[in-house]
């Protein structure tokens, strides 16, 4: 596409009125990224027969029952049926891990369980098996409201996350809030800017053509504003996750979501 055509398209797209709210009630202005998608893409998320993320969920269900580590136990050996034992669990993450004395997200909890109870090795970030289990477990909370724990020990992390959300970053010198709080619903390059509620991760992103974690998505945002992403083990990721969970408190868990 030539520069002229691109500029024209951007201009045209900017003139398109913001998407009308569909069912958002006046008291709560928050809307899921699902609401900013076309009906065709919404259908992909809403129908498990169409959602490509279910490939990973199917794997996760199998991993749940597969013995692992030198202990040769499966998740099911301790937790039974995930449908019962994991219902509501994902809605309470990130949480405080008492044993390590640190905050932790759901993927981190799965990794700790593997180490402590299965004597199994941990997976690297974005490993397909970790994503599969993360998605499978989180899906057991699908439809339930996000309920970040009322735990004072998480306050410093959440505050750090909020500060990051409001901090200008990158060559574009933008903070998350500039797009996702102040300009949500407006269009950027032909696509609607969502509010950025992380209610559906791990999510199937069309751009990735695969399932990915919230950290991966946040990393993409940083690259998008031409900032140097934090290192993979930096505390900033969890701080942002913790803040986002608080920001989306009460919104429904959508894992595994489909996103553009």
């Amino acid at each position, binding site marked *: 596409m030539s520069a002229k055509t691109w500029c024209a398209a951007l201009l045209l797209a900017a003139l398109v009125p913001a998407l009308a709210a569909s069912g958002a009630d006046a008291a709560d202005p928050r809307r899921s990224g699902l609401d900013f998608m076309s009906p065709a893409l919404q259908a992909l998320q809403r129908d498990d*027969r*169409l959602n*490509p993320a*279910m*490939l990973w969920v*199917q*794997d996760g269900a199998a991993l749940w029952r597969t013995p692992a580590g030198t202990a040769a136990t499966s998740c099911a050996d301790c937790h039974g049926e995930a449908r019962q034992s994991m219902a509501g669990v994902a809605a309470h993450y990130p949480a405080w891990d008492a044993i390590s004395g640190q905050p932790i997200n759901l993927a981190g909890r799965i990794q700790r369980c593997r180490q402590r109870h299965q004597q199994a090795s941990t997976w690297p970030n974005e490993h*397909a098996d970790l994503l599969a289990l993360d998605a499978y477990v989180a899906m057991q909370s699908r439809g339930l409201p996000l309920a970040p724990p009322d735990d004072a020990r998480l306050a410093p992390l959440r505050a750090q996350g909020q500060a990051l959300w409001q901090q200008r970053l990158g060559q574009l010198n933008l903070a998350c809030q500039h797009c996702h709080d102040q300009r949500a619903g407006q269009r950027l390059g032909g696509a609607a800017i969502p509010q950025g509620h992380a209610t559906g991760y791990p999510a199937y992103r069309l751009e990735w*053509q*695969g399932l990915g974690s919230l950290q991966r998505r946040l990393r993409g945002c940083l690259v998008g504003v031409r900032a140097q992403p934090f290192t993979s083990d930096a505390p900033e990721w969890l701080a942002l996750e913790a803040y986002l969970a608080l920001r989306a408190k009460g919104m429904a868990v959508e894992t595994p979501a489909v996103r553009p």
Partner: protein
Amino acid sequence: MVERARSLIHLPETLRKGQPFEVRVTLGHPMENGLRPDGFGNMVPRSLVTHFECKLDEQKVCSIDLHPAIAANPYLSFWVRADAPGTLAFEWLGDKGFVHRETRAIAPA
């Protein structure tokens, strides 16, 4: 990372003899068209699923040639008519000798 060959196959819960029913299949596969650069500026090599076939016992249901325009993790839905119990067989073929097969027994009432 190698994409594991895995698939989702969905059939309706109730099947009636002689009444067409919809089968939905999803295959985990990147459908790399060979035109995409990786993070280092190299082109990710082409790796595509090129053919899908469904049979009911020995009878063909459909066969589909897939091209690079088919999205990753290819999804297909098609219709079957079965007059008696039998076995649906699904086969995907692709570049570099890729093969994935599944079967499902059906018992229309």
